[in-house]
């Protein structure tokens, strides 16, 4: 076997064996399982880097491990596509996973389900790797569901807590709605092209009628909406914060939720040949970016703020892929994975230090008590706000510049406003948690987290500083763009550039937006020249709207959950109890009625048995006679 193919299949093998090992023999390893699991994922990371350089200096390839389903014209193998897109994703996934694994050793220390936690974390990494490298839609779908399952299991990790298990169920069910569309899209694609292999599918796309392509693209996008928590299926992600924080960092910030973006980038041919579908992607992304940032403005739960921020940033990525700037979308995906993973890990560190406290109103003045956490958090916040030279600046501005230059001015304006709001809410969080006067319970012992947790945070923070330079402007000549854009050369150009405004002008606007957001937060929460309460009373309806998350949960509850409950209650009371149970019980009681009658025949008299026997013989002969 070729060495690069061997490497390809070794990458998912390590997390898979980790899963089996901890799942089956976890109790024998005790605390060790965390270190070994991290080591396994670390090996995968090193192999991914090796593969990255192999692909970078040669070319991509595909390989089939074994034919998995082979029925008639339906063929689907366990096969991998290794091109520049997938190696970039692989390095990101395994890298962030390694850091999160190491962090988890400290975070989950002494937890009851320590081995269970690492087994599912490894399973997740395996599924995510397979999702990234799979070469046909069936395999993609399987691991698309598998990461959803891992997410469900890990959100509900503390299953004794009702809210946690409910959040897990919510995530699973909401994802199911999107996945229904995704599955339907795959069916439609198979019905039209008779194949599920990527390359073969893509050769059919250009000659396909536009409405078919649009239908397929929109159905696939429905899956992305569910998985990547876009409006209107975003409701699960904030609740998913019930899970352990490293899980939020890995699954709900860096990897799984970005699967939707990756999927669209992977199927860029389908989406680029359907301008209508791409516009839907853009519209949903834009709206979600604004909408989630708007909700994040007034929340007090630090993890929820970061969760809404994730939704908002995913909106940016969808904006990018919606206008055909796949490279920019993937770049933002990578840099977002780094700084949002960082933000979650630091939030987890804060939470760890305060023994589980999440409410902003009960924090403050933490800077002096946990310096490392605070500094790394601020780095993450700056990256999120898009302040140079942090990574968020390069990636977000690459998207916004592309949007402006391609002539989507409205989306661009929304994006800039969102950037302002983003800077505001993240610095509101930073100021309230780390700088303003302490509102902590004095009895509480606040401590900095252990080395094993801070080291991954520091690594991610330094990455958040340097990774942006891969996308050094001007954006269309950067290192990253040059590396990745060859993968997207077959995409149809449906949104050509109409302007050619230089990058520094657009970036200046973005940076100004970010800085004014930070300044607004500074005025409100540090200098207190304007009281937050005053702002609150001026914009009372808006505040209420934002604070209550635009009442989306309530609307869903009223529109969908309640009627469903009524309907299912009807099903239960009438259809199930009356009709189905009635039929079953009726059959049973009919039998018991007849058997009571039939029992009388068994009178125990030998003579009557003989009589019956002979009558039977006579009747049988008679039957043959008349036949």
């Amino acid at each position, binding site marked *: 076997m070729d060495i690069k193919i061997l490497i390809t299949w070794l990458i998912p093998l390590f997390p898979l064996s980790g899963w089996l090992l901890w799942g089956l023999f976890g109790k024998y390893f005790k605390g060790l399982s965390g270190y070994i699991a991290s080591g396994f994922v670390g090996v995968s990371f090193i192999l991914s880097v090796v593969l990255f350089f192999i692909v970078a200096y040669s070319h991509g390839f595909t390989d089939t491990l074994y034919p998995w389903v082979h029925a008639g014209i339906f063929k689907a193998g366990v096969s991998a596509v290794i091109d520049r897109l997938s190696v970039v994703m692989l390095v990101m996934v395994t890298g962030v996973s390694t850091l999160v694994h190491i962090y988890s050793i400290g975070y989950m220390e002494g937890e009851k389900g320590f081995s269970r936690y690492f087994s599912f974390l490894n399973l997740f990494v395996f599924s995510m790797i397979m999702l990234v490298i799979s070469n046909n839609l069936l395999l993609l779908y399987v691991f698309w569901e598998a990461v959803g399952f891992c997410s469900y299991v890990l959100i509900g990790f503390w299953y004794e807590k009702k809210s946690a298990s409910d959040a897990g169920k919510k995530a699973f069910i909401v994802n199911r709605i999107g996945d229904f569309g995704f599955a339907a899209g795959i069916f439609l694609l198979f019905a039209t092209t008779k194949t599920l292999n990527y390359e073969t599918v893509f050769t059919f796309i250009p000659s396909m009628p536009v409405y078919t392509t649009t239908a397929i693209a929109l159905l696939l996008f429905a899956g992305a909406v569910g998985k990547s928590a876009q409006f209107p299926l975003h409701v699960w992600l904030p609740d998913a914060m019930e899970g352990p924080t490293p899980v939020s960092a890995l699954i709900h910030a860096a990897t799984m939720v970005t699967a939707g973006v990756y999927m669209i980038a992977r199927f860029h041919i389908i989406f680029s040949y359907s301008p209508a579908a791409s516009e839907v992607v853009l519209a949903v992304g834009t709206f979600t970016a604004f909408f989630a940032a708007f909700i994040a403005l007034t929340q007090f739960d630090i993890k929820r703020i970061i969760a809404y921020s994730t939704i908002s940033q995913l909106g940016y990525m969808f904006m990018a892929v919606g206008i055909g700037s796949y490279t920019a979308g993937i770049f933002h995906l990578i840099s977002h994975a780094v700084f949002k993973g960082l933000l979650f890990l630091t939030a987890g560190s804060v939470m760890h230090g305060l023994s589980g406290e999440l409410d902003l109103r009960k924090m403050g003045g933490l800077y002096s008590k946990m310096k490392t956490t605070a500094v790394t958090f601020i780095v993450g916040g700056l990256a999120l706000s898009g302040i140079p030279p942090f990574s968020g600046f390069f990636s977000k501005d690459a998207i916004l510049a592309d949007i402006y230059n391609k002539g989507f001015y409205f989306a661009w304006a929304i994006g800039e406003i969102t950037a302002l709001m983003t800077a505001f809410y993240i610095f509101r969080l930073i100021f309230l948690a780390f700088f303003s006067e302490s509102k902590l319970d004095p009895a509480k012992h606040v401590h900095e987290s252990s080395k094993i947790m801070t080291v991954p945070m520091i690594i991610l923070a330094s990455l958040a500083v340097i990774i942006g330079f891969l996308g050094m402007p001007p954006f269309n000549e950067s290192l990253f763009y040059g590396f990745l854009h060859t993968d997207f050369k077959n995409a149809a150009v449906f949104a050509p550039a109409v302007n050619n405004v230089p990058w520094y002008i657009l970036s200046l606007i973005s940076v100004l937006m970010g800085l004014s957001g930070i300044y607004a937060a500074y005025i409100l929460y540090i200098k207190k020249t304007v009281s937050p309460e005053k702002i609150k009373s001026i914009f009372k309806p808006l505040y209420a709207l934002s604070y209550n998350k635009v009442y989306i949960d309530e609307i869903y509850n009223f529109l969908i959950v309640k009627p469903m409950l009524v309907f299912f209650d009807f099903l239960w009371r009438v259809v199930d109890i009356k009709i189905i149970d009635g039929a079953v019980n009726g059959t049973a009681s009919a039998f018991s009625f007849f058997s009571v009658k039939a029992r009388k025949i068994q009178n125990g008299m030998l003579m009557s048995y003989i009589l019956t026997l002979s009558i039977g013989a006579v009747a049988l002969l008679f039957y043959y*006679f008349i036949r």
Partner: protein
Amino acid sequence: MEELFYIFSFIAIFSALMVVIMRNPLTSALYLILCFFALAGLYVMLDMQFLAAMQILVYAGAIMVLVVLVIMLLNISRIKNVKSDLHQKIIGILIALILFIEIIVYIYNGAQKNPTGIFTEALIKKVGNTKIIGQFLFTVYMLPFEIASVLLLVAIVGAYLFAKKKY
């Protein structure tokens, strides 16, 4: 030969009837032995002397002796037969009659089959029926034969178990 057939048939049917009609089991048993002898005569007429011998030896000899022995042992010949159920007798006769009609209709209306085998009367007479049966029994029908011997063994054990005083 025809006359012989009718004589034997008459004896057989008559004694069979007597078996059923007679009140005393011992009388029935003796009529049954007579019936077996008559049937053995019919076997001889069908060129199956070996079977006729078997019939007399096993049935009339062994089985019927056993039956008579049991009757004697239990000493029930004097025990008055319990109330005879007229109702049941009528039904029994009716059923037997219908059964007989059905069988007769079958025998005379069934599809006639022509002789297919090779064991013609002449061959049997030439080779001897005992030899033919013996050849078949110990070659082709070896396995059933062995199973039958096991069956007999089982029957011996079973009979012992049943007749034991305490079980």
